[in-house]
């Protein structure tokens, strides 16, 4: 039997006898199951919210279609509408359409990031862009959750998995030296590199590999086992990412042990590195991103947008008069029928002009906000190479479909859809036309082209592999000259 196989077999035996570590693993698994269940519940709620929204929109559209037919037939009394309703040229601006960001199979792992992700937008052609922007800023379902954070699998795997692995490996060699067994082991014909490799491999095979298999399986079981067949690559990638990220922490523990410190010193060093890579570097990156590209706060943005809306509304009459002077041909003659005393055509046109003005006022604010946000996100995206924890988290968010690129693609698609609706309907408003029953079915439906995550995910994985390589190379270099028996 090779020395490596002997070490692996022996380590298995020693690990089996270490009850404290297994209690740690059991606690981790319990927390993981809770996080998965919590994520699954959150994901189902989000999907239900989207489904309900779409259903309401469809029901409204159907009702609207029916009403149009009734109006066209002149049976306004059936609808309980006043007589002027038949000339209601505001009708073309009424239908709404919902944009829903489809859920990726692994969405449940990222409920924290998902909570802040825009995933649902309501678009009415006559709504100002500001109302769409409101939808696209963020979706927040539960402010309490936002205040305290949600225990999701992205957090658990990024922050707690390293701690679990370090608990099993911080004293790989040091404990042997402190107990006195290292001298007897290294008096045998076994290279230190073989000993450490065997110890690390045992933890990889016995701890990390089962976790990397169990987590994707549990995630699929929590929602729908058939997902495994529908998106096998997502689950496979998740397993690979867990293995690579875990290998980084195991190798780091191997490297620190090869430096020859005591168990207490190793624990402190590894704890410090965990703090640095998992908490400090991401925090510094956030601070840097916020300092270099400070976007207005969301509440401030909302206030500013509302102020512009009020400003535009207050000038509504003036806008109509200016429009009437510039485009006298589009102004519909006022009705002489006393029953139609309310000039619906004028009201609709004024509303549209106000909203057009609002859009013009809001556009630079929204553009600035989006540019600053994009710059912030771009900096965070580039900065992920500063820490394996950031790379891992970014990759998991991408797998879950809550990454910034996908959110931006959704926003862009929603805006493009709104523009398409407007392009089809607004000319009717300006011409004082009303919508016919048949017109409604011809309106464009929301569609989103999924941005390819393959490139960024490949980079994440490449970055993680390079991160693994660094402690591996340093460890091998150290092992060439290390004589760890005597301190």
């Amino acid at each position: 039997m090779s020395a490596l196989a002997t070490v692996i077999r022996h380590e298995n035996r020693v690990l089996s006898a270490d009850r404290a570590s297994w209690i740690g693993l059991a606690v981790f698994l319990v927390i993981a199951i809770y996080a998965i269940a919590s994520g699954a519940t959150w994901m189902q709620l989000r999907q239900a919210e989207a489904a309900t929204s779409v259903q309401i929109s469809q029901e409204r559209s159907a009702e609207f279609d029916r009403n149009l037919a009734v109006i066209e037939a002149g049976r306004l009394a059936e609808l309980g509408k006043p007589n002027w309703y038949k000339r209601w040229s505001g009708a073309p601006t009424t239908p709404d359409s919902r944009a829903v960001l489809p859920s990726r199979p692994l969405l449940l792992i990222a409920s924290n990031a998902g909570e802040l992700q825009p995933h649902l937008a309501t678009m009415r052609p006559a709504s100002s862009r500001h109302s769409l922007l409101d939808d696209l800023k963020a979706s927040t379902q539960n402010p309490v959750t936002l205040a305290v954070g949600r225990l999701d699998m992205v957090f658990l795997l990024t922050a707690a998995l390293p701690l679990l692995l370090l608990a099993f490996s911080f004293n790989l060699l040091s404990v042997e030296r402190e107990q006195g067994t290292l001298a007897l082991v290294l008096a045998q014909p076994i290279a230190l590199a073989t000993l450490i490799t065997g110890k690390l491999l045992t933890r990889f095979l016995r701890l990390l590999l089962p976790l990397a298999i169990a987590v994707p399986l549990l995630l699929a079981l929590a929602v729908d086992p058939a997902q495994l067949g529908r998106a096998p690559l997502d689950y496979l990638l998740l397993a690979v990412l867990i293995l690579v990220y875990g290998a980084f922490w195991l190798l780091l523990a191997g490297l620190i042990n090869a430096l020859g410190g005591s168990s207490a010193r190793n624990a402190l060093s590894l704890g410090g590195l965990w703090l640095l890579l998992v908490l400090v570097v991401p925090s510094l990156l956030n601070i840097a991103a916020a300092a270099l590209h400070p976007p207005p706060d969301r509440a401030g943005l909302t206030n500013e947008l509302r102020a512009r809306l009020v400003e535009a509304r207050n000038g509504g009459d003036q806008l109509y008069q200016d429009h009437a002077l510039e485009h006298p041909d589009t102004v519909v003659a006022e009705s002489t029928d006393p029953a139609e005393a309310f000039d619906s055509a004028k009201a609709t046109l004024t509303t549209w002009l106000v909203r057009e003005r609002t859009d013009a006022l809001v556009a630079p604010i929204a553009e600035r906000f989006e540019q600053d946000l994009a710059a912030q996100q771009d900096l965070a995206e580039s900065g992920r190479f500063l820490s394996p924890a950031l790379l891992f988290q970014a990759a998991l968010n991408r797998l879950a479909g809550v990454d910034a690129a996908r959110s931006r693609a959704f926003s862009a698609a929603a805006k493009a859809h709104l523009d398409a609706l407007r392009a089809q309907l607004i000319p009717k408003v300006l011409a004082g036309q009303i919508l016919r029953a048949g017109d409604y079915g011809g309106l464009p439906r929301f569609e989103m082209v999924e941005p390819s995550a393959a490139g960024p995910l490949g980079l994440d994985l490449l970055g993680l592999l390079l991160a693994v390589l660094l402690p591996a190379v340093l460890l091998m270099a150290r092992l060439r000259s290390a004589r760890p028996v005597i301190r």
Partner: protein
Amino acid sequence: MLEARGLTKQYGSQIALHPLDLTIAPGEVFCLLGANGAGKTTTINLFLDFIAPTAGTALIGGVEVASNPLATKAQLAYIPEQVTLYRNLTGLENLRFFAALATGETLPDSRLLEILKAAGLPDGAAGKRVGGYSKGMRQKVGIAIAMAKNARALLLDEPTSGLDPKASNEFSALLTRLSGEGVAILMATHDLFRAKESGTRIGIMREGRMRHQVATRDIGHADLEQLYLEQMRD
């Protein structure tokens, strides 16, 4: 079999071992005597490649230790003052692991039990966890590891320290048997009596220098003690 050529160890300005020249032939038992810090353990650690020499070379079977540590360790066995084993494993499991590391083979349990018995471990102890063993029992597992290895050289660092007289006597008998089988033995000890009883040659070390070497057959117990005390006084 065991050879030191100008073997030196220095930590900064402090010299732990002045150039040492020493040859221990197969079947010879060389006992290193000296106070704490005399350089006995340093010498053994250099043969084990636990520390790197500052100058000179240590050789086992003509093979240089520092450049061929695995080849030289395959030829030697080591029993430290405190044989520390894996407390959660039984004596048999410990031997199984160390014997597999030492020989690269998986010896059958029946053979391992035979070895433990030959090393003097009491019946029934092999299946018990080492955490409950006495120092003498752990020492016997250490001897069993050395026996399983069939080593050509044996390094002992104060192996009888803390053992009761009976266990020490059994240990001496074992050394005599091993040396009779051609094993070269280097033993660091404070025990003058055991050195005279078990050794074929004795070296007295002080402050990292080999001060005096004498064949045990040429000196009596009382003279050895006198010689030792003289060397310590200089």
